[in-house]
């Protein structure tokens, strides 16, 4: 086996050195009744060539762009990833390193994550960002637990327009602690109805998503105000960070914790993972923040350098009193997003975000003109809801055969919205593809 460097001669001389008569002798401390007698029932090892053939055939059994025109977003977005980002990410000095516990020989990862933290605070308008969480959903769950710690209260209010899978994840995380979760209903215009918040007591957090699950831009400032009036933290979740290349950031609108999914920023969709949990907050809450942090310091000679810091919040120091149990996070994905943000730059992300917006508006307009109803009047970014009608299922299937995926049906999560579909358009979708979709759904 090419990954195992030992020759027979190596093995026998090493066995002699440790005083074992054969390799099984090394396992003699394991009681006999704990060992298995037969070999594991696994397929025989494949050659590189055979593995490629098998993986090629599995991967071809998938529908992906550009062969398919996929108008799906809903938490996973098809954005173009520059070749330079994929190439740099393949540098194995980055990818084959462990968590940077030994800073002197991990300055590459450390400076890159420090830069990532900085870019994230600039994107979201926040004061501090951690080195990453697993994904947007678990980041939201951790944000709510953090708000519970900060406020010492036991109830959270979360918008019904937060991604349904994020709400599911929140329920899983909060269940054993017996915390109460109240769902905030939606308004006719596709935004969250926050009017009920004022009447709720013992509230640790008010959480909304923007752009929300229907793609609508929420009213962040008012949400922050009602949250703060009731003594709760304002938690802002997102699935599409690209929006903040164009829209006002959450930090300047009163958010206390901002968390979400960073997959859009240079990370392949990869059937839903690995993604990137982005997590930022106000500096005054930093000691209650979950996850790793990189800080700047100096070495013995006074030269600048970077280290993991504020570890007293973390599981390996604080054990059961830790702020979170997170250890391994999604560092390489954070690095990818930093490379992506650096490649775009401030000017580029603005332009790209505008293009996403304009393309989605083009499709929205086209569908409207084709006679379809756009039920929510609030502004959207690169996703929006359209009512294709109750009988659209057959058309959807027919389109699938033509390699067009006409969005995500909302009926699964919002039964009252049967016939409604969530469509997404990014910069990767050409005008012709949108024209084809409009033509096909019209017919």
């Amino acid at each position: 086996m090419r990954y195992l460097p030992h020759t027979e001669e190596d093995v026998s001389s090493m066995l002699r050195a440790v005083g074992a008569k054969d390799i099984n002798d090394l396992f003699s401390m394991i009681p006999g009744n704990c060992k298995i007698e037969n070999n594991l029932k696994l397929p025989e090892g494949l050659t590189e060539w055979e593995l490629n053939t098998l993986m090629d055939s599995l991967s071809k059994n998938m529908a992906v762009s550009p062969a398919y025109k996929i108008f799906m977003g809903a938490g996973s977005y098809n954005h173009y990833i520059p070749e330079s980002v994929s190439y740099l990410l393949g540098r194995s000095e980055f990818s084959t390193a462990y968590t940077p516990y030994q800073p002197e020989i991990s300055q590459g990862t450390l400076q890159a994550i420090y830069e990532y933290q900085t870019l994230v605070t600039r994107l979201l308008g926040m004061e501090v960002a951690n080195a990453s969480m697993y994904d947007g959903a678990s980041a939201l769950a951790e944000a709510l637990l953090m708000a519970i710690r900060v406020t010492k209260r036991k109830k959270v209010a979360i918008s019904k327009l937060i991604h349904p899978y994020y709400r599911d994840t929140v329920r899983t995380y909060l269940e054993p602690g017996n915390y109460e979760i109240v769902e905030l209903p939606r308004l006719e215009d596709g935004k969250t109805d926050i009017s009920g918040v004022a009447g709720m007591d013992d509230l640790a957090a008010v959480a909304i998503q923007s752009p929300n699950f229907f793609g609508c831009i929420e009213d962040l400032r008012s949400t922050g105000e009602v949250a703060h009036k009731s003594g709760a933290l304002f938690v802002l979740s997102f699935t599409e960070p690209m929006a903040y290349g164009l829209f006002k950031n959450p930090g300047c609108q009163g958010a206390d914790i901002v968390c979400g999914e960073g997959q859009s920023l240079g990370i392949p969709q990869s059937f839903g993972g690995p993604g990137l949990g982005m997590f930022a907050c106000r500096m005054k809450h930093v000691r209650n923040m979950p996850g790793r942090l990189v800080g700047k310091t100096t070495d013995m000679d006074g030269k600048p350098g970077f280290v993991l810091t504020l570890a007293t919040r973390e599981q390996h120091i604080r054990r059961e009193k830790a702020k979170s149990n997170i250890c391994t996070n999604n560092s390489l994905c954070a690095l990818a997003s930093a490379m992506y943000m650096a490649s775009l730059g401030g000017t580029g992300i603005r332009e790209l975000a505008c293009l996403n917006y304009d393309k989605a508006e083009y499709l929205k307009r086209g569908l409207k003109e084709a006679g379809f109803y756009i039920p929510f009047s609030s502004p959207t970014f690169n996703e929006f809801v359209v009512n294709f009608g109750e009988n659209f299922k057959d058309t959807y299937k027919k389109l699938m055969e033509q390699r067009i995926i006409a969005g995500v049906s909302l009926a699964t999560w919002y039964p009252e919205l049967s016939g409604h579909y969530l469509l997404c358009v990014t910069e990767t979708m050409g005008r012709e593809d949108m024209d084809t979709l409009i033509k096909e759904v019209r017919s």
Partner: protein
Amino acid sequence: MKEPQGTSGLILNEPLLWEKGKKGRCGFSMPRRDVVPSPLDEGLTGDGPDFPDLSEVDVVRHYTRLSQWNFGVDTGMYPLGSCTMKYNPKINEREASLPGFAGAHPLLPPDLSQGALELMYRLEQYLAEITGMDAVTLQPAAGAHGELTGMLLIHAYHKSRGSHRLKIIVPDTAHGTNPASAALCGFHPVAVKSGEDGIIPAEAITAIMDEDTAGIMITNPNTLGLFEENIREIAEVVHSKGGLVYGDGANMNAVMGIVQMGKIGFDVMHLNLHKTFSTPHGGGGPGSGPVCVKDILEPFLPVPRVIKKGDEYLLSGDFPESIGKLQAFYGNFGVMIKACSYIMSMGSEGLKRASQLAVLNANYIKEHLKDSLYLPYDRACMHECVFSDRLQEAEKITTLDMAKRLMDYGFHPPTIYFPLVVHGAMMIEPTETESKEDIDRFIEALKSIVAEAGKDPDLLRRAPTRPKVRRLDETAAARKPRLTG
């Protein structure tokens, strides 16, 4: 001293990203604008983030230089105990980046995502076989996430039986994240001391296991690199009081094809695909922490689950007792592809051989260093061995000093100051992918460092001198945090 492998090499300075660039540059190939601009309420838009504008060359040089300041498995031996820093096969990267996988949307209908579902289904089956368990979830994103999943499963199990148990037993030789994971589920961790031989005596568990205790979290082999020889008795004690046994599989690399944890009393365990199954650690993730369970816990596994109906693979959420979701989608699929590729490349014999050689390498290091470094538990180890700095106390040389000096010799240091049961611990896990020559060089280096400690201890206190920076002031970093630039 022979010329060590650690050299300063070509290390160029590189400023912070925002100290580079010029307004108006872009390193991105902007798509053609084929639609007209649409109006937008100016009250909603902001100025856009204050990112530096860089060219593609700026970005490429920046990260290439940064990468050269990093030590990875591809750079050299990385004997970080409990982290299993084995070689990360390159072919696995190819498979994970195949367009059909990397470009797949997670909400594709099942008939358009059969390839991914089949791969997940296969991987679940392989992991069930390797662990001797009945069912698997691939959803947890990392080891600690797997632990949390395991604790949630135990919590849900007791709840379904109308019992509310508050405590969980966590031995001092268990993995570091265990207590925090238990606490997230509202369990109060109850510590139990390992015996003088480094393993848990069954009587210690008998003494504290009661009907208010949900179970035990046990790492086997434990963090001293020792096999918990009383595991069957311990499991019986825990089961007899209605508790469950959780296994931290971080150290599974020692026993693949030798022990199936499901056959020796474990009810639930997690694996780290980024340790045992060769996927790169990425400088701190992404990992993947699948959880394997016995059938009594299967109803509670996270949803959706991959199921097979006839020849078709499906995602099913129809498990009413499920604990729910641990993250938005199905787990770190990209990591699963690499682990599945590894298992398929190794096969049953290859995996067993890997464990055998991992254990051989660790014992070889232990034998060669036990006269130079203090070995608190002098007995056959598994895939890792734990020393301490007791013999260097006279020179006031610490584990940290020796670890830092190793960098000058061209090695990544071992895990230090863990496990907590050994004062000044130095935990060495070579893994099976290190050759005898490299291990000999590592042994030579440590012996030479021990000699230096006697002759010129300051050399160690000043170490490292060869990397880009020297020892960093961590106290100042924590006291006055500078977390953004």
